[in-house]
């Protein structure tokens, strides 16, 4: 039996969701998605529908995060938790190669890039944008072999946001909340009525169509499509935060001496949480791990953060010794120089850095404070 066509829309009953999960596994995918652990909604293996955060939501705030019971039994009724999908494409700690020394030389063996094909279930619009941002980092120049292999076998199942958190500002960043057609392999919209719990399923790619083979679907009714659109529109109008991004590159690049950097540095602990929670932060360091005999060595790559003193270590010491200089680097890179490097912002408006900052530093507030002092003195920032 052939699957539905790319661009087609269908209805999937909540009762048929286990069949959908089974179909993903049958097509060779290991499913990862939201699950409740340690009083947070994190990503983990999904084998059964009961692994999903049924009836749970979360409340991200500045420096706070709580999960709560919902009045309904939604599967995807939360916002975003501490995890981002980058851990699956760009692992926090990854072996890159192994080398062995012999009498005359050494031989480098690449790390195998095979592994399970992952289906990411419950990708938000901002998170799809974040994957695209990291694609430009790891595939744009010299492609990273591991990233490329994982990316090529990835299935992205988006779920439209039915609500926005107090920390959400994807509308400001132009990344959501709606998932554009073909931006994901499949896009689901969860619709809950007193009498019916079901999903609108939009097919974005041929692979998305393929994994729906054998899943009980019916053509989407016009009212279902309208209800889904209305839900996303309501989410768009309830963003908890906003950021004025007009001229933001020059706003930050031209003001490295703005007094606000010192103000925020009095609160910033330089703890690196924002960079680790961020779905686009890509900085890494390398580790050389020799065996005791010294004949064999492993090269590992580990997530690093521009907030550490050692990040800019040279023979003359660290280039960024003060917390102010490190916060300035992070924010200026994320929102300004990222445009020079990759042609887009490095921020997708997910709000994780606000939530997981132990002191609740809010980048939207910092940008507003810098903007409040007026436009930069000179019209054109150096490029």
């Amino acid at each position, binding site marked *: 039996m052939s699957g539905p066509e790319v661009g087609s829309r269908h209805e999937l009953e909540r009762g048929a969701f286990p069949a959908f999960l089974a179909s993903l596994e049958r097509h060779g995918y290991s499913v990862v998605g939201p699950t409740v652990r340690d009083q947070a909604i994190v990503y983990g293996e999904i084998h059964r529908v009961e692994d999903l955060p049924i009836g749970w939501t979360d409340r991200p705030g500045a420096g706070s995060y709580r999960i709560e019971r919902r009045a309904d039994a939604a599967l995807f009724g939360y916002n975003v938790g501490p995890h981002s999908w980058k851990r699956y494409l760009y692992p926090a700690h990854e072996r890159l190669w192994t080398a062995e*020394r012999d009498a005359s*030389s*050494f031989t480098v063996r690449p790390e195998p890039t095979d592994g399970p094909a992952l289906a990411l279930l419950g990708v938000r619009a901002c998170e799809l944008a974040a994957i695209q941002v990291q694609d430009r980092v790891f595939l744009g120049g*010299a492609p990273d072999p591991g990233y490329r292999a994982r990316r090529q076998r990835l299935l992205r199942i988006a779920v439209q946001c039915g609500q926005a958190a107090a920390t959400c500002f994807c509308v400001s960043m132009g990344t959501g909340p709606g998932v554009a057609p073909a931006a994901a392999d499949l896009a689901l919209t969860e619709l809950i009525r007193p009498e019916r719990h079901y999903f609108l399923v939009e097919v974005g790619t041929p692979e998305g169509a393929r994994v729906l083979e054998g899943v009980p679907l019916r053509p989407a009714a016009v009212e279902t499509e309208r209800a889904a659109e209305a839900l996303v529109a309501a989410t768009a109008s309830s963003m908890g935060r906003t950021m004025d991004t007009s001229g933001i590159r020059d706003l930050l690049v031209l003001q490295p001496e703005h007094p606000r950097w010192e103000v925020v540095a009095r609160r910033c602990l330089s703890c690196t949480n924002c960079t680790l929670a961020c779905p686009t932060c890509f900085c890494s360091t390398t580790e050389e791990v020799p065996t005791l005999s010294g004949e064999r060595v492993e090269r590992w790559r580990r997530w*690093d953060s521009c907030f550490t003193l050692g990040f800019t270590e040279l023979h003359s010491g660290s280039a960024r010794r003060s917390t102010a200089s490190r916060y300035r680097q992070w924010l200026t890179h994320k929102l300004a*120089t990222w445009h020079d490097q990759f042609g887009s912002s490095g921020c997708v408006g997910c709000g994780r850095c606000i939530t997981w900052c132990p002191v609740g530093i809010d980048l939207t507030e910092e940008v507003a404070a810098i903007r409040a002092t007026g436009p930069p003195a000179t019209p054109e920032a*150096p490029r």
Partner: protein
Amino acid sequence: MPPEPARRDDDLPLAPHPYRVLEAGPETADTTTLALAPVTGEATRAFAPGQFNMLYAFGIGEVAISISGEPARRDRLVHTVRAVGKVSTALAAARPGQVLGVRGPYGSGWPLAGADGGDVVVMAGGVGMAPLRPLVYELYAHRERYERVEVIYGSRSPKDLLYYPELQRWRRRTDTRVQVTVDSAGRDWYGDVGVVTTRLPDARFDPARTTAFLCGPEIMMRLSAQALADRGVAPTSIFLSMERNMKCAIAQCGHCQFGPDFLCREGPVLSYAHLKPFLATREL
């Protein structure tokens, strides 16, 4: 000519290639010049003066080191390494026969083509002479392309001057002026004492038609570039080789960012016109 090296960077961009140490000679108390060649017998990779490689000491790690040999020679790759950290100390201690890893070359080179027909000023500080030596070789290889060539080289002391015998040969040439100055010296030093900018008034060049190439400590480059600009050299014709921490050299690790640039990719050589606002910012 040895065969062209096989490329496997597409498969494994971060893997070093084994190179054997042909020669290892002490340059100064803390620097060593290494001559390397691929263990496979292949030619070394072509490079542009100003580019760098990631050098790897097995089991210890990798660092970015500029290439300091002759661009025309493909039978040996030359690097001058200053022992300052764990990896560079291991590299500087390498002996002939030992195998090190190399990947590269990376980064922007000195834009020498733009200097054709005009005067050239080279200013080096300390080990900053290392990435400038291939440029000097190129200047001499095509000396007819340029008008005046002025080289100013400064170091902490006479003992810290790189390539001393070669420097003496350069100084004997009548088609170049090579000024050497040190911060401090004993009574056996008959040369100049003072920072490199103090030698600039004696250098003869037409600022409107001059291209300058600078490498050394950041403060030395900043002050030298400003002095050249004050003399009338266009900031777009003054080039600096910048240094920052580097892990990957392929614009993926984030460490070498300086303003909007990855110094491993857009740099290390960038124009003063481009760098000036960023150099003026502390802790950028």
